[in-house]
């Protein structure tokens, strides 16, 4: 399924970025198997399949394909379109195939992404479960309606075709499996896979000492008010099961960082997965040992008309951070320093001056991952909640009136520690000879991603707009000592404006003054750490002896107070 989607989908966000997931569900809408994809998609997908089953009941027939993106009904945010195909075998429904893919534009107020929504209607066309295909062919009226509410209908039409073909391949292969092994055997194996995933998660939970673990953390702001927004979790472990209670989390907010209940539940499960069972499959069996409690009316209980677009990103990402920080004392070799805040990145749209045609793009430049108990963090890699790729510079420049000026690691951005957090990435976009509408998203601009066990936070997120006439403006991050809220939409910028995104580095692990001085020296030679930071933060003196950098052992001892 994934193979088809990569090769035929129309938007770079699908095929280059791979912001999509394909999955197989049993008759009862349990997620059974997934292909490569984004954790954030997969965890919430069963709810979307369930919404189709609820709405259509007896009216689900062979040859049907359904579409939905309604965040309140199993979707995640408006931009994620979910295509659901019931699979029939010998006249009886036996399973479901589904593809969830982020489409590049779904008709929100600004191209691809809009930072200031206060109601979901500003976030684009909300699609409840609808039938878009039957055995007689496409349901043209519905498709026309869907395609009428986007800035790039050609791309969306192509993406829909590709997603439907991906589901169709999944369906066909499933039917072949049934032909070969018999329907009952295939169903038994699906049921085994759920039990198997459950066993693995239970085994992981059983390794945690029984007790209660809590942590809280903040999102910079909701995009409307400058106030930070709190998330809090209390985890109770008993035997091989676990309860996660989100009491103490902020109530619903005006801006678009609210999260629907089912999605927050999925976020909780995928956030815990790497700590409990990093290798096994993730499916609905993984959910069974974990009870998720979400108080009514809290940030994680989004309902009409609260906007949710960025909840899929900032909030989903922060849910993971809270869970990891809570369990760090119990699982010190599994938990890592916090990952950069969010990949919110940049979206832009306008008229391409070369062709006169509209274009829309979105990209999420990555940041650093947290340091591990025995090694440094990964630099500039996509956030844990997804697994999305770049749009190659040469493709970007061929397709859009954009030039990429740099893609580089930011010195001293990795959170210092005995092991250092990964470095953040700086990427600069120049919008050539036209005035696009741009939205910039980000988080962790108030303070960088926290370290653990004495590790320091990574360098905070920061974004700048550099216009030919007005020069540099900090648009996210600290400006004259005050925090400027980190995501916003610019209605029109001057031609040849440059946007500079500087994503955060990952949090450190352990005390920086305990880092092996030779590792600090290597970091200085590679340019990851400055001489100044080596001395001030890591307490390592490095000297230049005839063009060769070396650790000054005596001075380092003195700095570290070991002398």
């Amino acid at each position: 399924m994934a193979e088809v989607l990569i090769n035929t989908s129309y938007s770079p966000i699908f095929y280059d970025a791979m912001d999509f997931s394909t999955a197989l569900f049993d008759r009862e809408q349990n997620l059974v198997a997934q292909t490569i994809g984004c954790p954030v998609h997969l965890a919430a997908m069963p709810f979307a399949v369930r919404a189709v089953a609820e709405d259509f009941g007896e009216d689900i027939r062979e040859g049907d394909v359904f579409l939905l993106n309604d965040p309140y009904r199993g979707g995640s945010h408006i931009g994620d379109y979910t295509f659901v195909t019931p699979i029939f075998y010998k006249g009886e429904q036996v399973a479901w195939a589904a593809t969830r893919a982020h489409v590049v534009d779904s008709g929100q107020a600004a191209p691809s992404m809009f930072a200031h929504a206060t109601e979901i209607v500003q976030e684009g066309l909300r699609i409840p479960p609808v039938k878009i295909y039957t055995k007689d062919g496409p349901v043209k009226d519905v498709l026309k309606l869907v395609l009428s509410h986007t800035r790039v209908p050609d791309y969306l039409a192509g993406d829909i075709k590709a997603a439907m073909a991906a589901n169709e391949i999944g369906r066909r292969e499933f039917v072949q499996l049934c032909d070969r092994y018999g329907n009952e055997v295939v169903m038994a194996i699906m049921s085994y896979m759920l039990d198997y995933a459950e066993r693995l998660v239970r085994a992981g939970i059983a390794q945690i000492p029984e007790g209660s673990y809590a942590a809280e953390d903040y999102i910079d702001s909701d995009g409307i008010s400058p106030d930070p927004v709190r998330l809090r979790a209390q985890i109770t472990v008993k035997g091989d099961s676990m309860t996660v209670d989100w009491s103490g989390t902020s109530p619903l907010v005006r801006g678009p960082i609210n999260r629907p209940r089912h999605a927050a539940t999925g976020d909780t499960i995928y956030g815990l997965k790497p700590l409990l069972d990093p290798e096994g499959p993730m499916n609905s069996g993984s959910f069974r040992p974990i009870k998720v409690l979400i108080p009514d009316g809290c940030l994680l209980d989004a309902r009409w008309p609260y906007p949710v677009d960025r909840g899929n990103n900032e909030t989903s990402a922060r849910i993971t951070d809270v869970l990891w920080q809570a369990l760090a004392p119990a699982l010190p070799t599994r938990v890592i320093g916090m990952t950069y805040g969010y990949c919110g990145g940049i979206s832009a749209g306008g008229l391409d001056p070369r062709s006169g045609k509209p274009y829309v793009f979105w990209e999420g430049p990555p940041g650093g991952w947290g340091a591990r108990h025995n090694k440094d963090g990964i630099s500039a890699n996509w956030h844990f909640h997804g697994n999305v790729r770049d749009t190659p510079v040469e493709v970007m420049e061929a397709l859009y009136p954009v030039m990429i000026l740099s893609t580089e690691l930011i010195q001293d951005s990795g959170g210092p520690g005995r092991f250092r957090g990964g470095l953040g990435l700086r990427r600069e976009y120049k919008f050539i000879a036209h005035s696009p509408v741009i939205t910039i998203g980000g988080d962790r601009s108030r303070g960088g991603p926290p370290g653990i066990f004495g590790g320091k936070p990574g360098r905070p997120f920061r974004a700048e707009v550099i216009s030919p006439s007005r020069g540099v403006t900090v648009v996210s991050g600290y400006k004259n000592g005050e925090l400027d809220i980190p995501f916003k939409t610019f209605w029109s910028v001057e031609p040849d404006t440059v946007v500079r995104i500087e994503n955060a580095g990952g949090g450190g692990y352990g005390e920086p003054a305990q880092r092996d001085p030779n590792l600090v020296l290597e970091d200085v030679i590679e340019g990851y750490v400055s001489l100044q930071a080596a001395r001030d933060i890591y307490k390592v003196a490095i000297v230049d002896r005839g063009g060769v950098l070396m650790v000054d052992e005596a001075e380092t001892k003195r700095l570290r107070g070991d002398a």
Partner: protein
Amino acid sequence: MPIVGVDIGGTFTDALLYDERVGKLSVAKTPTTYPEFSEGVINVIGKTGVSLGDVDRFIGVGSTLAENALIERKLPKTALITTKGFRDLLQVGRWWRGRLFDLQWDKPAQFKPIVRRRDIFEVTERIASDGRIIMPLDEKEARNTARAIRDGDYQAVAIFFINSYVNPIHEEIMARLLGEEAPRAFITTSTSLSRIIREHGRLHTCVFNACLMPLLVDFIERLTNGLRQRGFKGSLFFFQSNGGITDPTVVRKKPVLTIGSGPAAGVSAARYLATFLGHSNVITLDMGGTTVKCCAMADLSFPITTEYIFEWDMPLALPMVDMVELGAGGGSIAWVDKGGRLRVGPQSAGSRPGPACYGMGGLLPTLTDANLVLGRLNPRRKLADEIALRSELAKNAIISHISEPLGTDVEEAAFRIVRLAETIMSQAVRSATIERGIDPRDYVMYAFGGAGPMHAATLCEELQIPQVIIPPYPGAFSALGMCVTDFSTEFAVSVLYELGSIDPDVLTRSFEQLERRLSQELAAYVGKKSTDFTIMRTATIKYIGEPIGKGLDVGVPMKSLTQEDLRDIRRRFDELHYARYGFMAPEERAVIVDIRSRVTAVSDKVPLRPFDALGAGRAIPKERRDVFFEAGYVSTRVYARENLKGGTRIEGPAIIEEETSTLVIPPEFDAYVGAYGEIIIQRT
């Protein structure tokens, strides 16, 4: 005059000798010699019994040399020069991770870089996506960089600039300046190897090539000297990953072409044999100690990829024979995971310590151990005359690691290991066929490698492939491939032409321009006129919104193209799209992303000669032993392959043993020895 082909594999170096004077083929096998690979090559030729002074042509050499150096990062000091602002492109790659939930995963480009950040230099220059020079190369800065590289004692330098695929001028100027300032360094520009859009592939191709240049140049010199000292007066050629052979002068400049060449030689051997057997659609299954490789050839043409992934997020933008490789081989380790599920691979016991039954310290059960316990492998045979297989060690390993946790007896556990490994192999075949829009039921499978012939019959049953061919010399098949392959050179250029509006003359000229250059390169060493060359043209096409750099390959006729030809190309693309992805969109605009030409010159190949006559005699088994199949142990006849005459038919269950491989004929299958010594297995 004798021809020798040598394949340096990870464990063994294989040679195949064809002596025209007596019309005889023979094979030899010796352990691969690290790090002095040329020793093993000379050893193995010695073992064939031929005198090097008599050898007319020698063709080698497989991928291990280049791949091993890269995997181990045992590389000469190499610098990269790139566009200002893009120093970290090599490390940052495409931003994604190899394991979705594993927080301990290390990104290879960062934790084991091919070129370290300190060795990457930036210069001021910029080319736009349409080829315009936005910022001219700062020659003063470039010259200073060249001097810094000379002073830094770099042995090799890679030059890669953004958008150079459309205009290589800055890379060429930089190379010239480097040549002036640092004349001892080996220099590679990305555009000398590839003109494909998407920076990551060109960047890695260029960096890999630079790192390999000093190594391959050194290897070629040692090998040549070693051969000459022993009287060799013939000519030496190399195998390339594009499925053709070439001259050492090319490999000295483009050593990256040898990555993946060993497996490609196996595919080429299958292709050659298929022309004799009259098969036009062939799936190859090449299984060794650690992986299984699968390739599907429609109409006997090599499928080509220009996005081969070397390690995680390290793509190569070269035309290479497209194979699917998965981690299942004889050495793959079987284990029971925390959820109580049996797993096979991807970890492999390799050749050291190897499977438990080798008795060299390996304690974990492998696929080979399972095959031994089930009676498929002969417990009294020695591997490469050296390693005795010890059943009791295999049994113990399976009992303690698999049977006990699963609560089964040892045979049942071993049988499940084999079935699971076969499922992984069938996944490789599915990826190479069904996922590419190919129906395996229309194909014949050629199974080779040490372990391929043991599992092929079951796989074909699973995938409904009607027939399996086990070629002669399945354990040295790549070495045969070296001796039966034509010279060829292939190059891809991104053009981004819209198919509906491009002038056919422009397209023709683009191909011709490319072909002139390739023909010159070939003519320089094959000693033939370019009129003797054959040219194959391919266009990689996609619908306008589909991925750049992906797309489907459509053949282009070798003539001055007309509108009619373009319409035909378009029609074939739509049909291919339907077969591959399940839909077509004839109303949509389509774009030719890349054009590719392959120029080929015929070489003198080892001929395959059929048996004079096919008998119908019954074969005499050398023994019987109990072999475990689905229904339990069956008393099974065992044959020696060298005693089987053409025309012999053998009913399954049966085992056929030969020096480098073991063939399993399950119950309800039979085997027939064909005219060229090939064994055909099919369902009765």
